[in-house]
């Protein structure tokens, strides 16, 4: 029988480089802690006692949060509530604001980070569909070398990410969409606050003379990762009316491979996608 008597070291690096070296030193036994809102529950579930928790909250560089030349940069230690306090971002991207506001309660949002939502790689991560349609890039570092990876290439599966053992996600970045774009976020859960998504959706669309110019849809909780809906090219140039919406619904449904779980059936998820796609596009029509 294995006796786990070892105590966990708790470390507060001040520099990114230091954090990466610590991670390298402890290997799989070292865990980064940002908000800890996923990590602590995960350790409990796995009944795992890590050798070291590497708290990244006191690394000033990871607190970076800027919007300049329409490039948004959000560091790994920026909490959800810090993002929500940024009026410029919330005005520009109300759908991202809505997605973030749907996560947990205020207490969770005072600790949890957007980057943590990505690193956790759950298909039900509620910020992810919005980040997918915004084509966010995940920026990693091992202290020396940097990588920049599109979010859909970074998240590989349930809790599987494209991160090397000595790497840290330093920040994410994305371009603000042009003003012509309209975004929507929708989430269905089993209750109206503090609920894990049964299905979620983010949509980004722009029209040119009432015809669809660009459209991006991402769906959450319908496959092992968030799904970027493919095949929407077919409807570019078409007028946004109920007939086109029906086509978009069919394309979206085709992209989803939901499963049954404790919270709901695959069948329901498929039906709900239809409802959500229609609802979000009709909201856009109503606004026009």
């Amino acid at each position: 029988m294995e006796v786990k008597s070892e105590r966990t070291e708790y470390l507060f690096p001040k520099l990114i480089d230091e954090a990466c070296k610590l991670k390298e030193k402890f290997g799989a036994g070292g865990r980064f802690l940002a908000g800890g809102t996923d990590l602590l529950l995960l350790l409990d579930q796995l009944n795992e006692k890590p050798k070291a928790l590497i708290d990244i909250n006191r690394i000033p560089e990871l607190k970076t949060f800027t919007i300049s030349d329409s490039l948004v940069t959000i560091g790994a230690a920026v909490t959800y509530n810090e993002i929500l306090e940024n009026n410029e971002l919330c005005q520009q991207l109300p759908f991202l604001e809505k997605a973030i506001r749907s996560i947990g309660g205020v207490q969770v949002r005072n600790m949890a980070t957007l980057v943590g939502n990505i690193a956790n790689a759950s298909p039900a991560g509620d910020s992810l569909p919005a980040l997918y349609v915004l084509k966010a890039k995940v920026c990693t570092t091992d202290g020396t070398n940097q990588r920049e990876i599109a979010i859909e290439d970074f998240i590989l599966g349930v809790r599987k990410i494209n991160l090397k053992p000595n790497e840290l996600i330093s920040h994410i970045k994305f371009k603000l969409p042009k003003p012509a774009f309209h975004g929507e976020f929708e989430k269905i859960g089993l209750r109206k606050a503090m609920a894990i998504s049964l299905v979620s959706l983010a949509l980004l669309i722009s029209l040119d003379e009432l015809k669809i110019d660009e459209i991006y849809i991402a769906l959450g909780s319908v496959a092992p990762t968030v799904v970027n809906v493919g095949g929407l090219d077919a409807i570019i140039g078409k007028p946004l009316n109920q007939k086109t919406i029906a086509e978009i619904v069919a394309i979206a449904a085709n992209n989803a491979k939901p499963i049954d779980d404790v919270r709901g059936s695959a069948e329901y998820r498929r039906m709900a996608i239809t409802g959500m796609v229609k609802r979000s596009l009709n909201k856009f029509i109503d606004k026009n």
Partner: protein
Amino acid sequence: MKKKGIGFASAWQGSNLHFGHPDVSTVLIELREDQKFYVGVAAADLGQGIPETTALIVSRVLGNLPLDKIVMIDPDTGATPDGGATGASRQTSVTGNAAFNAANNMLDLLKSVSSELLNTSPSEVEFKSAAFFNQDGENVTLSDVIDEAKNIGTSLSVIGSFKAPSTEDLDEKGQGYGVNQFGYATYVAEVEVDTETGEVDVLKISTFVDAGRIIRKIGAEMQVEGGVTMALGHTLTEEFKQENGWPLTDSFTTYLIPSIYDVPPEISAHFVEEEVPFGQLGAKGLAELVLVPVAPAVINAIYDAVGVYVTSLPATPERVLQAIKDQTPDL
């Protein structure tokens, strides 16, 4: 598309111990040196507010005595008389009447002691503003009465009991006087249903409740609102799932009680005060009754909105949508 609907439901529910179980409570009141009335009854408070209600009843009997003159002793069957179980929605009805009787016994005792000092008969004494008056307007204080009680060697301690009318077990045909009081309630639920996702928003619940005479209005309203909220959980979100005997919903993350956003900002409580014909209070039980009409009212409102009945609870988005699709397969 979102559709609105309105649903009604009525319910009745018996309270107090049923089917031949004697239903009794006893309350102790003591006037102590600090001129405060100490009230003791082992009637557990789960948050429903029985100590506040008991104190209010004692205060009213004792000439609207200020509530800071009444001290509720913590309930403890080892130190206070037994009020019986907090269940069957019975405490206000049974312990409330016992408190009423105890307070009247206290009043009689105090009148009798003070009448000596006021040179009058006990029935001529009036107790108001924490003092005792005779017909000529002369008065003595609580402290005078406490001193006099010591002089004559009388304890200023009383008990009062109440037993609700006896019930009986039902006969083999299910007939008999099994329950001594019923409360009645009619609710109106207003909902909005998304026809394509099955999501239900409860916009408003209006309640009309006959729980006899309402003793402490805020307490009764709190019971109604809390009961409605709990029942909304049963109706829409709370589901106990198990597999081979293992509970799957064993945490707050999986067994979902309503959050603030699941509760309508308006739950109104209207009371129809049809008094129960026994005891002195006229109060009936309220606690359990207030949950009962919620599910049928909401389910009827969903029917009014989208024309389908959901026949198993909770009415999750999945069940609502399934019912809609079953009705109109080509939707």
